[in-house]
C-alpha cells in the first residue's frame, strides 16, 4: 500500500514540475485560451465520474454518480468547444491570401 502511495506521489511531483515548465513559456496573449484549455483538461474528472457511477451499488451512490457524470461532461465538452472557438480566431489569415481572394471575387 505504501508503495502505491509513493508511486502516486512521484507522479504528482513530476507533474508539478512539467506543468510549471510548460506554462512558463506561454505568451501572455494566449493566456485566455490557456486558461480555457486547461479548464477542458481537468474535465478528465469524467473518467473518475464514470468509474464511480459504474461501481455504484446503492441508489445514493447512483444518484451522486449520475450527477457527477453530467457535471463532468459539461466541463469536458464545453471546455474543448470554447477553446477551439477561441483558437480558431487566432489562425492568422495572412493579408496576402486575403487580397488574392478579393481579386478572384472581383
Amino acid at each position: 500500500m505504501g508503495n502505491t502511495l509513493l508511486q502516486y506521489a512521484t507522479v504528482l511531483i513530476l507533474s508539478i514540475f512539467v506543468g510549471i515548465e510548460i506554462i512558463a513559456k506561454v505568451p501572455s496573449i494566449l493566456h485566455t485560451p490557456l486558461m480555457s484549455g486547461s479548464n477542458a483538461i481537468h474535465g478528465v474528472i469524467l473518467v473518475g465520474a464514470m468509474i464511480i457511477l459504474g461501481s455504484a451499488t446503492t441508489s445514493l451512490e447512483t444518484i451522486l454518480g449520475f450527477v457527477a457524470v453530467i457535471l463532468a461532461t459539461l466541463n469536458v465538452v464545453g471546455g474543448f468547444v470554447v477553446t477551439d472557438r477561441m483558437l480558431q480566431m487566432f489562425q492568422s489569415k495572412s493579408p496576402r491570401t486575403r487580397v488574392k481572394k478579393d481579386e478572384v471575387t472581383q
Partner: protein
Amino acid sequence: MSRGTLIDLLYLFAAFTFLLALKGLGSPKRARQGNMVAALGMLVAIVATFFRQENGQGLRHIPLMLLAMGIGTLVAVPAARFVQMTAMPQLVAIFNGVGGGAAALVSITEFIHIHSQKPATYVTLEVLLGVLIGTVSFSGSAIAYAKLQELMTGRPITYPGQQVINALFGIVSIGLIVTILISASTSLLWILLAVAFVLGIAFVLPIGGADVPVLISLLNSFTGLAVAASGFTLGSNLLIVAGTLVGASGILLTQMMSKAMGRSLANVLFSAFGSVVTASGEGAREDGRTVRSGSAEDIGVLLSYANKVVIVPGYGLAVAQAQHVVRELADELEAKGVEVFYAIHPVAGRMPGHMNVLLAEANIPYEKLKEMDEANPELQTADVALVVGANDTVNPAAKNDPSSPIYGMPIIDALAAENVVFLKRSMRPGFAGIENELLFDPKTVLLFGDAKDTLTKLVATVKNS
C-alpha cells in the same frame, strides 16, 4: 496483454496528448491543433473507461451513464458555440465550477463506497481534500459567474469582521477534516460539504472588479487540484497527472496575472480592492479642471494626417461590439499611409489575453497586436494614441500617485504620444473604480458616445478627408 494494461496504456496516451496541448499553446499557430489532439486523447480515455473491469465485472449503469453524458453534451455545446466572445470569462468560470463540483462528488461517492472497508487514513485525507477544494471551487465559481454576468454587483462585498469570519470558516473546515480522520464519520462529511460551500462563497464575495479574472484562474487551479485528489482516491494516474498539470500551471498563471497588475496575489485575494468608488463622475472637478471634448470631424482629420496611430483597446470596445469597426478605421488609415498598430495591456478585457481573442475575431492580423513592453517605446514617437474603451490600463496615477489604489501597476503610456484621443461612453470610472488623470490632461481630447457609433463616424470622416 491484459485488458487492464491496455486501458492503462490508452490512459498514458491521453495524458501525453494533454501535455502536447499545453505545449502547443506556446504558439498561436499550433495552439488549435494541440487542443484538438487533447480532445482526441480525452475521447480515447473516455471510450477506454467503458471497457474497464473491476474484479472481473464490467461497469454497471452504462445506459444511465450514456444518458448523463447526452444531457451534459446537449447543454454544453450550444452554450459554448453561441456565447458572445465578451461573455467568455463567465463561461469559463461556469465550466470550471461544474468540474470542481464533479470532483467533489466523485470524492464523496468514493468515500461512501469504501467507507465500510475502513480505508487507510491517507485515503480518507485525500477524499476530504478533494471534497473541500472541489466544493470551494464550485461555489466560488458560481459567485464569480454571477459577478461577471452582472446578476449581482461586480464590486467587492464587504462587511465588518469579514477576514475573521472567513478565517473561522477555514479553521472549522480543517477541524472537521481532523475530526473525520479520527472518527471516520459519514455524517460529518456532509457538514464539511456545507461548510466548504459557504467558504467558497465567503472567499469570493470580497473580490471584485478587475480582480475577478485572477480569481477564476485560481479557482481553475483549485479544480485541477481537486481532480488530482480524486485521482489519488481512485488510484488513477491519469487523473493525478492531468489534475496536477492544471493545478500547477493555474497557480503560475494566477501569479503572472497578479504581477501584470503590479500587485501580490495576497493583495488581490484579501484586500477587497476597488470597493470604494473614489471618482466623482462629474465633468468638472473641485479644483476646476475640466475635460476637453471634440467632434468626430476634428478627430478624423487629426487621425488622417498623423504618421503613426496607436490604438489602445479596452473592454469598452468589446462591450460595444466595435472590434470590426475599429479594424475598418485602421484599414482606412493605412490606405492613407498612416502606420497603425494596437497596444494591448496584459489585463485589457476581462481576462489576460482576452483582448487579443476579441481582436483576432475581427481578423486583425496578429502581427499588429503589440504587447505593452513593445508598445510603450513606440508610443514615444506616435502622433496619436487612440484609447477605445480602456481606462485603468492607461491611468498615469499608476505611475505618479502613490496614494492611488492602482499605484505600481504597469500601464500603457498613452500620455507619451503627441495627442491622446479618448473614445468614452461617459465620465464613469473604469473597472477599478478610480478616476483617470489622463482625461484631464491638456493633450487629451474626448469623444463621448457608444464606441461603435463614434468609430463609425470616424471611419466616415477619415474616408472623406
